[in-house]
């Protein structure tokens, strides 16, 4: 199981490798509680965003089941007019949620950086 140190290392790497990081959290899927958070913008309500995103992930998992798909959910992307939000599953019970400034980075970088570094917290 990942420790606070593992989460801090993950956040440090993400922060240094992605320009325009707004906030990032590791979220317990069942409860929607955040296991660890890092934010660069104090007006961004990360715990609320994480909680609602847990419901979105649960709904997506239900959809996958309803469709009878045998695939597993890897990540979910949300594009806002000025932000990119990415959700990446790191275990069946937890996911990483990251919000970045769309003008300063792009989706490919975000996905690559998160995928590369989340191994240590899975």
């Amino acid at each position, binding site marked *: 199981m990942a420790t*606070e140190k593992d989460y801090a290392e993950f956040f440090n790497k993400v922060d240094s490798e992605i320009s325009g990081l707004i906030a990032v959290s590791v979220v317990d899927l069942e*409860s929607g*509680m955040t*296991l660890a958070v890092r934010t660069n913008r104090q007006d961004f309500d990360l715990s609320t965003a994480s*909680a609602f995103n847990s419901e979105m992930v649960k709904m997506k998992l239900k959809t996958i*089941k309803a469709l*009878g798909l*045998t695939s597993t959910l890897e990540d979910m992307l949300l594009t806002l007019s000025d932000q990119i939000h990415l959700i990446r599953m790191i275990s*069946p019970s937890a996911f990483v949620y990251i919000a970045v400034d769309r003008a300063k980075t792009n989706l490919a970088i975000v996905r690559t950086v998160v995928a590369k570094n989340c191994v240590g917290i899975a």
Partner: protein
Amino acid sequence: MARLDRDRECVIVRIVYDGTARSGKTTTLRALGASLGRQVETPAEAEGRTLFFDRLDYTGGRFDGYAIRCQVVSVPGQASLQRRREALLAEADAVVFVADTSAAGYGASLEALRRSLAAIGDRTSPVGLVVQANQRDRLDAVAIGRVRADCASLSPHLAVTESTAVNGLGVRETFVFAVRLALDRVRELQQTGRLEVGRPDVECADDLFVALQQDAEAERPQGAGTAALGAEPASFGRTWTSPPPAQESAPARQSAPWPPDRSVSSGLIWPPIAGRIALHEATEGAPVDPIRRPDGSWANEDEAPWRLHSDLEALYFDLEEGRAALIEWARHHAAIAQVLSRRSIVLARAAPGAWRLWQLVASIPSLESGVRQAWNEGTPESIAGVLLSAAKRSLDVQARLAETPLAKLGTFGNLAVENGLTVFSGLFPTRIGPADAEPFGAESAGEILRHHLAPILRDLAAARSWEHNLKIVVEIRRRAEERGWSGIGEILCRLLPPA
């Protein structure tokens, strides 16, 4: 305590931090507060010691579309404030026991843990308890393996996490796990129609402070306050049917089995809270890895610390159908709850497009393995002692099982000793037929032992000389007479063939 506040669209739970004085409860709450960005309120302190409680409120996460509002409260640890501590524990939806695991404080922590278990043990709806093994940075800290073993000996329903509260390590992870346990309790209360609705009596630290003061003034008897929680949970009935068969030619049947992990949702695990804790323990470390058996079922290795099993047909493509089958299994388990291992759980795990039911049982050495070990390693005297004791335990359990639809369930291979009690620790048969419910006949003791023990003894006796076996027979007679178990002794002697 748990409440559903529809007006404010939140579910309110209380997480209580318990522990001895100076075990690190206040430090833990302050570290948690710092981590969550919340202020900790402490109504009264004396020389740095909590007199009433420390408290922080945190709203985060979602439960069935409602926000989760956590009232996080720590108790005063001083022995003289025991009444306040019990009043706070009586309203807990989950308890985090902060244990001082330094050499000096460990003994007192274990003793206090025992008392806490007793305090929450008689609640009408189970309350999950997590032991937060604190002060792991101390050079003289007790080994975590010993902490886990000691906790397991106190109760099989304890989860253990490690922390160093002074620098916040392990605090948040423990809190999130406690919230999950509290939500399991909410789900249980909801499903049995006992979840209270409306605003809670205690909204803030001031309310709680006033309530505790009134409580002290009124000098209510210990344990008061739990009655408001409602009646006993609805007991599972005794309707005995086999799980409905899964659809034929289902595509998911040939796919990966999706073994249990911590993602199992609330409401899909039995027993609700103890089951979550057992699952936490079973999935600690390496993931469980089932293999397909020749009969199509899924199971893990026999030597694993937790045995895992899912029948070929225990696969459901409709959630409600799967839930109904899970309830049916839970009924089977509840019917023999008085002799069931405390670490025996059933759950439904989501698979792509389907739900698979699993049984998960802690591996405990069986009566049969004890007899075989004694036979291979012991003297005739010790073998006779183990045989007699195992036979007596088996007959005692059989008498209790005779009233249930699983009269013939308890064999020497699936009965074991757990915390001094003889329990059923085997896997349930997938299909339960009328033959399982037929009790043994009039000569029940002889019939039971002959049925279960004769094949084992035949096998063992054949491997030893007749002189050795004769010594065992003589010793069985002598010991049986000493203990007043002559009947059992005679049956055993008749079952023991000369080599």
